[in-house]
């Protein structure tokens, strides 16, 4: 069962443009939704995360939008830069349980063209 679905698989954006990556989840028990950025040869690095009690969270150029009723959340990267070129994974977990293991989406390879 694929608990978190992510799209698109790949995305090409011009420098300065907006990158949008979408995720949908199935398990209503999920209450923690992080986004991870991964560069080749490196582990996933936490970018930004949101809890379902808010509909939006912004940190610098990165914004998460969250729609609890639709069970969807998305990452918006404003003013995209070539240095943002990486693979982005959304994830979900049940933060209030002890283990909090993450269920990852399938990833989006972002390429920002100068």
């Amino acid at each position, binding site marked *: 069962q694929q608990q978190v679905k992510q799209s698109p698989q790949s995305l090409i954006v011009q420098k300065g443009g907006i990158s949008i990556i979408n995720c949908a989840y199935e398990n209503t028990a999920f209450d923690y939704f992080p986004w991870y950025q991964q560069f080749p040869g490196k582990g996933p690095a936490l970018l930004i995360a949101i809890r379902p009690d808010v509909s939006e969270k912004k940190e610098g150029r990165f914004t998460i939008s969250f729609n609890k009723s639709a069970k969807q959340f998305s990452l918006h990267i404003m003013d995209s830069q070539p240095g943002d070129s990486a693979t982005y*994974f959304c994830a979900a977990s049940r933060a209030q349980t002890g283990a*909090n293991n*993450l269920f990852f989406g399938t990833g989006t390879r972002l390429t920002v063209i100068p």
Partner: protein
Amino acid sequence: EPEVTQTPSHQVTQMGQEVILRCVPISNHLYFYWYRQILGQKVEFLVSFYNNEISEKSEIFDDQFSVERPDGSNFTLKIRSTKLEDSAMYFCASRAGTGGKPQHFGDGTRLSIL
């Protein structure tokens, strides 16, 4: 900034052999995880570990796998009799506590089974 360190960065092993992957989590963290990422695919949860015992494990984590925290700093994943399909990137992660505290990932060990 403290980080999760993993050794070795690349391990090549003959099919059927035992392999041990090593991780040093961030020092004050309490929860420890192993994930794997088959080339080009999503990151998948294997096992979580807390208070010197397994908290949760996935279907992938069968009897061939085991984890151990042999001392106050190391966290290991052992695969007893490796199979070709065990070839993947294995990531260790650690987390400070409950309630949505982020998981911090190491840069992984690439395991190649011949």
